[in-house]
């Protein structure tokens, strides 16, 4: 059966980076959204198949998600070479844990991004220990300007935490971001903001309580 309408062309074919990379900015938002949902369903399908040892599904999963996850590794590590090593660990872990994804109740991208972020933070901390220094590793990270495509992705999801962070003092929202994206510890934050550790121990949890209140609204 032939579908002549051009938008049907790619249907059922291997998905591109669209969900994460968005090459097709011209399509309308509505069709973009439903397309994205279909792609997420595809990726979930790949993960189920990976759990059964399907290497082709693993390749499809890699094709669909590696660019976003590599972006996350680079953002955390600030070093392309180390990000490559981290990404290798990420996909090894995804393959080994694909079966657990189905039972952990997390959304797909949350699970994948958390793996990429956590493994990158682990590497970053090892690197910091080796250097025997606290901050310089995170200092040279440029906060890359988001592309318009990236800005469009999951805008509604992002709004919530971004909006809630603006309700905190600038230093406090900065501290939350740095902890997540740069793995900053309480000790490092105490040095950065030049306040005693006890003060950080008090105000970061206070920020987190405020943040939680906002996120639960």
């Amino acid at each position, binding site marked *: 059966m032939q579908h002549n309408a051009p938008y049907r062309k790619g249907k059922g074919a291997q998905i591109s980076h669209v969900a994460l990379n968005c090459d097709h900015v011209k399509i309308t938002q509505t069709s973009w959204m439903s397309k994205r949902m279909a792609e997420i369903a595809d990726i979930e399908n790949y993960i189920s198949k990976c759990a059964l040892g399907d290497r082709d599904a693993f390749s499809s999963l890699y094709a669909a998600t590696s660019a976003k996850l590599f972006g996350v590794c680079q953002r955390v590590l600030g070093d392309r070479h180390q990000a490559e090593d981290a990404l290798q660990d990420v996909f090894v872990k995804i393959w080994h844990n694909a079966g657990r994804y189905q039972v952990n109740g997390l959304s797909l991208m949350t699970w994948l991004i958390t793996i990429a972020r956590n493994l990158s*933070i682990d590497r970053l901390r090892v690197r910091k220990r080796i250097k025997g220094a606290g901050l310089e590793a995170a200092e040279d990270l440029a906060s890359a300007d988001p592309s318009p495509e990236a800005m469009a992705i999951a805008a509604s999801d992002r709004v919530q935490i971004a909006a809630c962070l603006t309700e905190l003092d600038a230093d406090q929202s900065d501290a939350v971001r740095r902890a997540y994206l740069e793995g900053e*510890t309480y000790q490092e934050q105490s040095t950065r903001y030049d306040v005693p550790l006890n003060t950080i121990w008090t105000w970061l949890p206070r920020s987190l309580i405020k943040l939680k209140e906002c996120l639960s609204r």
Partner: protein
Amino acid sequence: MTDDINTEDEMLLAAEYALGLSSPAEESAIEDLLAVDPELWDHHAEWIKSFANLTDDVAPVAPPAGLKERVNEALFGPPETKQSLFSRFGL
């Protein structure tokens, strides 16, 4: 958890753990708890979802072409080279 203070403590434990701010001893205690305390798990799941959204501004970057092969090798060993007809017959 029955009272607010404990719920708040659990929420904070989960947040610190998700951010990687817990000490190693706390981390392993939380990991044990996560397996048996659904409320703590829910807090954890909500936090990692919210925090993961902090990466929405991170632009995708295509990894180098050879990386997928490295992943495959790490998982499945070196790629099988296509055997010639002769070698398949032991020649």
